[in-house]
């Protein structure tokens, strides 16, 4: 006899459910449950899903209490470490800023860079001086070239670009967040909603909600013994604090905590020493030339439709500056890029007001206070030499 999926057959009520009096009425289904694999070639019946006989209300309340206590302890631990809630810098957050161009802000000033202009250019200061708040599209540890190319292909963008050049990342084509443009184009409604919920309900409240304090990151940082041939490398730790429009500055713990600062310097020093995984000089030069070639092309596309592009080589200091110069000497990288692209450039070493003493706690990024000073100094140069106010005589673009 055929079973049926209509209600005419006796298949409607699955057995094994807990009865309302709390008694499990099918102990067999608790201990041994048949599946479709036990019933070849027949219509499969309604499954059984019994609830184990337990005081579930007490279990649930106990679980909630313990969960709240554990989360409270975890939050307290990280706050005690010096962490305060901040917005997570994710591809989804970047996408929100990128979409502003499509939403009527195509004439905006964009910061397209890696971490140095990301941390060192303060949007509040720039806005106060310029009258308009730039859109921050920089990403740490990531060459901005894919972002520039994306903008070059977008006719809606007609504004101005401050293109930050951090030699190691830019000419070395590092791409930690290089997929942010793809994410922006592919982002699903669900991801957008998730980002909104996270940045409004979770991130402003919980300090522990930061990738640096995620469980796997914390366990990975334990002092694991080195495996011969595969030594443990220190991962970059939390460096910055980000706001909802991606205005970002160096975390003050790097200034105030000598141990943490030393740790961050140690992280950078890992890159300064030669490694067997380094590209050969030929590979490095090839990559640099490819980056320059692509940048020149993107800048040409942008300038052809009137977009102003200004290259900026931000300050670095100490061993990091030596490393930058050794890795990609100015004459074969920055100078070539400026010449070939035809775009104007600001190299910090060419401007006394930018080449002075900056507080660079871990040699690569400025303290918050100096980032504000730097922003003002940079803005003054930009307005004076390159992008004068609209009624002033035309300058280079």
């Amino acid at each position, binding site marked *: 006899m*055929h*079973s*049926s*999926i*209509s*209600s005419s057959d006796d*298949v*409607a009520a*699955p057995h094994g*459910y*807990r009865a309302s009096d*709390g008694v*499990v009425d099918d102990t067999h*289904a*608790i*201990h041994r*449950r048949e*599946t*479709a*694999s036990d019933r*070849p*070639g*027949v*219509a*499969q019946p*309604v*499954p059984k*899903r019994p*609830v*184990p006989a*337990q*005081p*579930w*209300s007490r*279990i*649930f309340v*106990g679980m909630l209490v*313990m*969960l709240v206590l*554990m*989360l409270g302890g975890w939050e307290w631990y990280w706050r005690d470490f010096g962490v305060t809630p901040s917005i997570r810098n994710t591809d989804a957050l970047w996408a929100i800023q990128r979409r502003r161009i499509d939403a009527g802000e195509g004439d905006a000033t964009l910061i397209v860079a890696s971490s140095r202009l990301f941390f060192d250019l303060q949007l509040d200061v720039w806005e106060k001086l310029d009258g308009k708040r730039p859109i921050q599209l920089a990403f740490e540890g990531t060459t901005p070239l894919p972002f520039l190319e994306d903008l070059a292909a977008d006719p809606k963008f007609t504004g101005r670009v401050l293109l930050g050049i951090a030699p190691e990342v830019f000419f070395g084509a590092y791409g930690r967040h290089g997929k942010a443009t793809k994410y922006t184009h592919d982002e*699903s*409604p*669900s991801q957008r*909603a*998730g980002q909104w*919920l996270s940045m409004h309900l*979770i991130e402003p409240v919980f300090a522990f909600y*930061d*990738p640096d304090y995620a469980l*796997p990151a914390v366990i*990975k940082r334990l002092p*694991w013994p*080195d*495996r011969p*041939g*595969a*030594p*443990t*490398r220190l991962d970059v730790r939390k460096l910055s604090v980000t706001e909802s429009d991606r205005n970002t500055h160096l975390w003050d713990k790097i200034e105030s905590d000598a141990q943490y600062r030393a740790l961050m310097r140690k992280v950078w020093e890992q890159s300064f020493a030669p490694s067997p995984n380094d590209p050969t000089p030929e590979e490095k030069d090839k990559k640099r030339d490819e980056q320059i070639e692509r940048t020149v092309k993107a800048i040409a596309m942008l300038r052809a439709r009137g977009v102003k592009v200004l290259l900026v080589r931000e300050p670095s200091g100490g061993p990091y500056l030596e490393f930058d110069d050794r890795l990609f000497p100015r004459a074969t990288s920055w100078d070539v890029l400026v010449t070939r692209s035809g775009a104007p450039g600001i190299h910090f070493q060419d401007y006394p007001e930018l080449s002075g003493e900056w507080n660079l706690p871990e040699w690569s990024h400025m303290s918050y206070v100096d980032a504000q000073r730097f922003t003002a100094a940079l803005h003054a140069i930009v307005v004076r030499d390159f992008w004068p106010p609209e009624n002033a005589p035309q300058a280079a673009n």
Partner: protein
Amino acid sequence: MVFNSLTFVVFFALVLGIHSLPLPWKARKVNLLIASYLFYSAWNPPFVILLWISTVVDWYAAQGLVKAKREAARHAWMLLSVVANLGMLAYFKYGQFFVDNFTVLMASIGVAWQPAHYDIVLPVGISFYTFATLSYTLDVYLRRALPARNFLDYALFVTFFPHLVAGPIMRPTELVPQFEQPRRATGDQIRFGLALMTIGLFNKVVLADSFLANAAERVYDSDKIPGTLDAWIGTLAFSGQIFCDFAGYSTTAIGAALCLGFAMPDNFRFPYAAVGFSDFWRRWHITLSSWLRDYLYIPLGGNRHGPFRTYAALMMTMLLGGLWHGASWTFVAWGGLHGLYLAAERVLRARFSNYRPGPLMFVALGLLTYMLINLTWVFFRAKTFGKAWDVLRGMLGLNVAAKPILTTYYLVTVAFIVVCIVLAHWFMRQRTLESLVTRTPAVVVSIVWALMAFTIVIAQGSGNAFIYFQF
């Protein structure tokens, strides 16, 4: 939307809240149907149209099957359903694969043909819902079931969000009857359902994504040649990842359905404690393996037409099962290897039919099964045959000049987690989760539940999609 996302937390709370309101049963079903379409369209709204096509075609095909007077007409209605569903699957999932292979074939006979590049986005879960709707018409065609009386119940069977995009692949006879009578979960069902969802998300967010995925990526997605230790740890990591990811999804889905008052079948039964490959397939992705058995292996002849037809049907089923997982020859190789294993086991069982292993040999056979399954995962995980051979050579100790890839952290965490998974599977081999929970003191259940929930939160998963979404 994915289960491991904030969006789903809010969505599920709203759906559960509305489902619990004192509304007429039909209104609550409409709520579930709309919610399921929202759930699906949260990825890519236009693809809901495909879901509608699949739903409507099979509804009318099943009606036609019942009304048809002649066998030829029944065949025609059945074929309409098969062609429509497999046609959609072929176009969206295998279009580029077919074109690429045709190009290679043409090139091999000297015809230079360069087709336009397909730029087709794979609709999430298409392999799952096309199989679910196909089972509806095929059950009616095979006279195993009558069609649903109510389009709303049928549409909800196809679309019901817990199983929609990654299974368990439901049969209509399992779910449609549950929609026919009003049901609301009891408090205990909701709490146990939430506990199941926590277990599922713990598997996915903590074990699969946070601790196992990276080790597998470092071995399989790197251009480095792995040595013996790295190849084995990378592969073991993937074996744990794929289980925790997929079984985690199934458990979460079962828990979500239970919170709404519906029962869904087990999809996994501690597969890494399998002894032999037929046992493995009774424990791994049960709803797919039984679907392939009922609608492919048995219609191909099964074991009723002599050894040759049996082995041919077995191999064909496993090869197509491999291809179901992805449009790549590496998946076909994975399925083929399982087919060979099953065939070899069949031969050995016939040859040694009186053999009964002792306890130690039983465990040894179980571990041998697990090891051989790990070899198949190499083809499942590797993106190219070149990479698969690199890893296999490494596992066999042939990459003597290989440099270490994984640091101690990965070696230790992967080994620890995978050993725990295998031990847990052996412990649970003849048990159900429910039987274990029944016998565990309530305070221990509470502590374990809280610890799992806590680690899910502090692992801060990034909402990675489940692996099986791409299938």
